[in-house]
């Protein structure tokens, strides 16, 4: 359904006081096709948004309202749900039953297979039938399905970043699908706005901290999407590390080649898939200082920079990808999906230049 006649989409944001909620608002308050109808927060109901997100002072004087499913259903065309895993599942279900379109940024509707929720989340999904109705929110992989989707589930930040580097290799049958190693590095804003001893400044500062080195939840999504692309079961080993930045992800995706290939063939594989993609930039520069992707040059934008190199001796390919975990990793993808869902120009409100240096 496209809002052709220039009408603005009435948008609601549930859970708007967190970092992802705040980033969504940052994009929505200046989006030319959006009218911000409702912004909810349990904790800050009644308060002006700019008191929780001071950077938005002057852009909106909307106040937080309590989560009211009926009002959301009647006043909004589309609702973004940015509440933690386990809380979103109920809100999304009730909104879905009201017929309002939903872009969910939680993990609750990302996986097709309920068993994967048991293994990775230790959680029994209460509405497994809804999983098949949900479309995985990477337009570069599912643009057509997103167009008509009633429920889009946005990817995990490290999942989308890794997938965009690995996809051309899977689609061109270049790599051994049982020995993929994803080693990712991510900034502190990836942990969200809730303080904890692990994010306490004096202890979070300056770390290179591996966390959940095995069974990290995003692995399930990467395996799911890679298996779809490869047409067979794919296993992926992921290890994330918290590093000393606030925004940014670098995924170093190691894969072993099934047959020998060349840099030229890799360029063709990547260009073949991303030639017309406005938010994927290919970075493999033979000269200059900046030869490979680096989050330093995407922070604040919706880009995912992708690059690659071949390690002939070890028959290994290193596919690199960099993104802003709050943008292409969350709010940017969500708004990009909204643009697709409503037939807007896909870059509407998203052609933002990265902020460098920062």
């Amino acid at each position: 359904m496209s809002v052709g006649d220039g009408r603005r989409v009435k948008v609601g944001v549930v859970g708007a006081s967190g970092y992802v909620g705040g980033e969504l608002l940052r994009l929505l308050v200046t989006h030319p096709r959006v009218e911000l109808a409702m912004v909810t927060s349990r904790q800050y109901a009644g308060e002006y948004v700019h008191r929780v997100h001071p950077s938005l002072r002057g852009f909106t004087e909307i106040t937080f309202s309590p989560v009211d499913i009926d009002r959301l259903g009647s006043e909004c065309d589309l609702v973004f749900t940015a509440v933690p895993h386990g809380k979103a599942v109920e809100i999304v279900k009730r909104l879905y039953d009201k017929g309002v379109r939903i872009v969910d940024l939680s993990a609750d509707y990302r996986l097709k297979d309920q068993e994967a929720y048991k293994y990775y989340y230790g959680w029994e999904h209460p509405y497994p039938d809804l999983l098949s109705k949900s479309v995985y929110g990477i337009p570069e992989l599912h643009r057509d399905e997103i167009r008509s989707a009633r429920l889009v589930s946005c990817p995990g930040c490290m999942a989308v970043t890794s997938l965009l580097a690995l996809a051309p290799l899977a689609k061109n049958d270049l790599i051994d699908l049982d020995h993929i190693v994803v080693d990712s590095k991510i900034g502190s804003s990836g942990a969200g706005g809730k303080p904890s001893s692990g994010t306490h400044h004096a202890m979070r500062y300056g770390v290179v901290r591996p966390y959940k080195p095995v069974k990290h939840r995003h692995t399930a999504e990467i395996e799911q999407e890679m298996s779809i692309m490869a047409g067979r079961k794919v296993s992926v080993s992921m290890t994330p590390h918290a590093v000393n930045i606030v925004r940014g992800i670098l995924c170093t995706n190691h894969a072993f080649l099934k047959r020998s290939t060349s840099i030229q063939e890799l360029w063709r594989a990547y260009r073949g898939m991303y030639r017309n993609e406005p938010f994927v930039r290919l970075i493999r520069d033979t000269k200059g200082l900046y030869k490979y992707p680096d989050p330093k040059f995407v922070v604040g934008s919706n880009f995912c920079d992708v690059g690659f190199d071949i390690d002939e001796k070890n028959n290994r390919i290193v596919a690199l990808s960099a993104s802003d975990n709050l943008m292409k990793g969350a709010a940017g993808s969500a708004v990009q999906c909204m643009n697709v869902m409503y037939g807007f120009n896909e870059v509407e409100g998203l052609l933002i230049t990265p902020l460098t240096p920062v």
Partner: protein
Amino acid sequence: MAKVRCLECDRELNVPSDAIEGEIVTCPDCGANYEVARSNGRIELRPAESVGEDWGE
């Protein structure tokens, strides 16, 4: 809609005419809290106590 001036920062506040007695109104510019009061049919704002959070460093 009644137009009332914030006592702290002079910002014009729009108080809905159906605002009920004792309802809290916050100034968007300076955060001052007021209680809605009605005297001889006119809407007035009485400063309400507001708990200020602080970094406490």
